[in-house]
């Protein structure tokens, strides 16, 4: 039994057989061909290319049908490579000259190309290197008559374990065959993580030494709540997780009856309980779990899934479709919050030692006005139903907020000139996620319609902890007294200026925090759609007056441990069935 730890990327528990995608250990044989074999070998190679092309075309159609045309473009580069005459002729002539099997010849040529691409500092071109890798593997599998890569051919439901999951790898798969994902690479915004949340299967990403510790045919447990992966668990552990899983299931069933009811406390304090989403595909869960609206639409995926920046039109279509489905409930779009290198090719020699303290979020937008205004105009154009709001990430000062607002105003003006309709009174918010923003909250509040506290970054920047760093991750604490003080200060600054204050960070979705947050006066909580029912159930079972008292107790306590165990005891007593 081995216990591995990764980043929890999609909640839930799965127990089952491992389906291993051991991508980098492809056996390349070395065979010398006789005269009579050469033509056959060339034919074999061309058949493999043809068959791969057919597969990719099918994947492309499948993706376009399920996710939309824009996603299909991922495969265009693949298809062009397969139809590259110069390249194909090179492989064929090398087969003839070297008298070697096509797998080997092809593998070597691809590897060379891939290496020259990987050697550049250019992010986009580097990403293309993974396209090459992908196509290299596909053709090799074909040549070896081994279709292991196609996950959709799994015979029984399994936990997919792989080094990483590329889009084309995950396309043909059926939800019914997938118990969960675990990948060695990747963070919460990786393809595997996003897909897992959209499919609602448990998932862990960024598991160090995953492939080293797992063999084909192993059994495993993945706990997408805690980020634990247990390889070949013993009976005792299996039983423990089975009962945890059953508890989760029973609990989620019990939540079905409150879907259409408001998130209102017993003493009638209503909270806007909204959902965080990153893919339009998540809308089904948002609606089926009874959300008030979208409290945070992260727009980054639009920029990450394609090799070029999304156009105003593409963004508009995307935003509009969400706004229409959620109407009349509100949707809050956050302008992009990415490291600059993800959207703009960074000049050589500008590698960042501290990307979290570097060029990201609104800072990138300021440096690239066209990028920023393109998104703002797309948002504005999608606002005609009057249920759309926009918010800016990473604001650290009043100056920055005023500057960002000027961009918004400029975008409005450009639309006015073109007589394009939009919501003139579109609501504007600011993410409170830097300690400096909390300290400036009173001034910021006078410039916006709402605050949304982003706890992930607020905690990281306040406590100076990168929670992905295992050496210090225990210092990353929701319930650190300093964090609670900052939240309280933000709420007060907002309310003093008559604007509402919400929270869209992960803390908002921690059941342990609900009492505390409601008691501190938060007006809105925006959480993962998968946990929405649970938080609603808690809100509907408590008194606001109790929550106020509990939050006051917490604010007087001196340590995170003390606060956490205090809250934990209250929850265990009041909600014995809620999984914490």
């Amino acid at each position, binding site marked *: 039994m081995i216990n591995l730890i990764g980043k929890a990327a999609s909640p839930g528990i799965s127990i089952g057989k491992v389906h291993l995608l051991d991508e980098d250990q492809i056996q390349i044989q070395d065979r010398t061909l006789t005269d009579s074999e050469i033509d056959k070998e060339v034919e074999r190679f061309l058949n493999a290319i043809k068959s791969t092309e057919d597969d990719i075309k099918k994947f492309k159609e499948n993706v376009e049908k399920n996710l939309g045309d824009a996603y299909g473009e991922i495969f265009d580069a693949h298809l062009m490579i397969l139809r*590259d005459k110069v390249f194909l002729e090179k492989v064929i002539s090398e087969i003839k000259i070297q008298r070697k099997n096509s797998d080997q010849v092809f593998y070597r040529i691809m590897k060379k190309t891939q290496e020259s691409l990987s050697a550049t500092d250019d992010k986009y071109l580097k990403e293309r290197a993974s396209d090459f890798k992908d196509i290299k593997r596909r053709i090799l599998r074909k040549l070896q008559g081994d279709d292991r890569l196609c996950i959709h051919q799994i015979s029984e439901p399994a936990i997919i374990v792989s080094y990483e999951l590329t889009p084309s790898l995950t396309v043909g798969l059926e939800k019914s065959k997938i118990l969960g994902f675990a990948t060695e690479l990747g963070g919460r915004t990786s393809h595997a993580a996003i897909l897992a949340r959209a499919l609602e299967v448990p998932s862990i990403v960024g598991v160090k030494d995953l492939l080293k510790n797992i063999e084909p045919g192993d059994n495993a447990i993945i706990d997408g709540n805690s980020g634990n992966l247990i390889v070949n668990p013993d009976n005792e552990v299996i039983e423990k997780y089975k009962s945890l899983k059953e508890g989760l299931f029973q609990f989620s069933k019990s939540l079905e009856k409150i879907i259409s009811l408001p998130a209102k406390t017993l003493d009638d304090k209503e909270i806007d309980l909204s959902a965080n989403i990153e893919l339009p595909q998540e809308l089904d869960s948002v609606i089926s779990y009874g959300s008030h609206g979208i409290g945070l639409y992260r727009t980054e995926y639009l920029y990450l899934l394609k090799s*070029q*920046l999304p156009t105003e039109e593409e963004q508009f279509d995307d935003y509009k479709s969400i706004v229409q489905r959620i109407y009349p409930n509100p949707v809050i779009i956050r302008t992009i919050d990415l490291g600059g290198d993800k959207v703009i090719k960074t000049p050589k020699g500008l590698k960042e030692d501290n990307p979290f303290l570097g060029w990201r979020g609104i800072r990138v937008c300021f440096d690239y006005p066209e990028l920023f205004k393109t998104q703002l105009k797309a948002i504005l154009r999608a606002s005609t139903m009057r249920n759309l709001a926009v918010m800016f990430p990473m604001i650290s000062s009043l100056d920055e907020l005023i500057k960002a607002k000027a961009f918004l105003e400029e975008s409005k003006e450009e639309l006015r000139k073109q007589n394009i309709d939009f919501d003139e009174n579109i609501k504007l918010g600011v993410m409170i996620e830097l300690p400096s923003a909390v300290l400036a909250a009173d001034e910021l509040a006078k410039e916006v319609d709402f605050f949304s506290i982003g706890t992930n970054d607020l905690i990281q920047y306040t406590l100076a902890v990168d929670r992905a760093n295992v050496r210090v991750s225990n210092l990353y604490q929701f319930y650190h007294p300093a964090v609670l003080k900052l939240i309280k200060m933000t709420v007060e600054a907002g309310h003093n200026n008559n604007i509402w204050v919400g929270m869209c960070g992960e803390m908002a979705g921690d059941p342990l925090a609900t009492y505390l947050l409601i008691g501190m006066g938060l007006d809105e909580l925006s959480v993962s759609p998968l946990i929405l029912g649970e938080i609603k159930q808690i809100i509907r079972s408590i008194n606001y007056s109790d929550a106020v008292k509990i939050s006051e107790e917490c604010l007087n306590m001196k340590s995170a441990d003390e606060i956490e165990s205090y809250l934990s005891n209250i929850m265990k007593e009041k909600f014995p069935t809620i999984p914490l």
Partner: protein
Amino acid sequence: MVKKKMTIENSSGLHARPAAALVKLTSKFPLTKILLQKDGLEVNAKSIMGVMTLAAEKGSKILIIIDGQDEDKALNQLVELFKDKFGEDK
């Protein structure tokens, strides 16, 4: 034979989409030899694999070499494509 040096001006360089646009264009001149040179590396401009192997980032200088039928026409169209930033950054 005609030659001309061009600079890559779209922000994301010669990644898959612009490379594809370039190959589509050069393929319209099946009888003409079209090569691209960058830092001593020379590739066939009708091969997407070749073009992408150049790993040409923004600011890279690319020497276009065209030899054969309609070489001026091909060069003009290629120069336009470069100037148009391969249809990106708009």
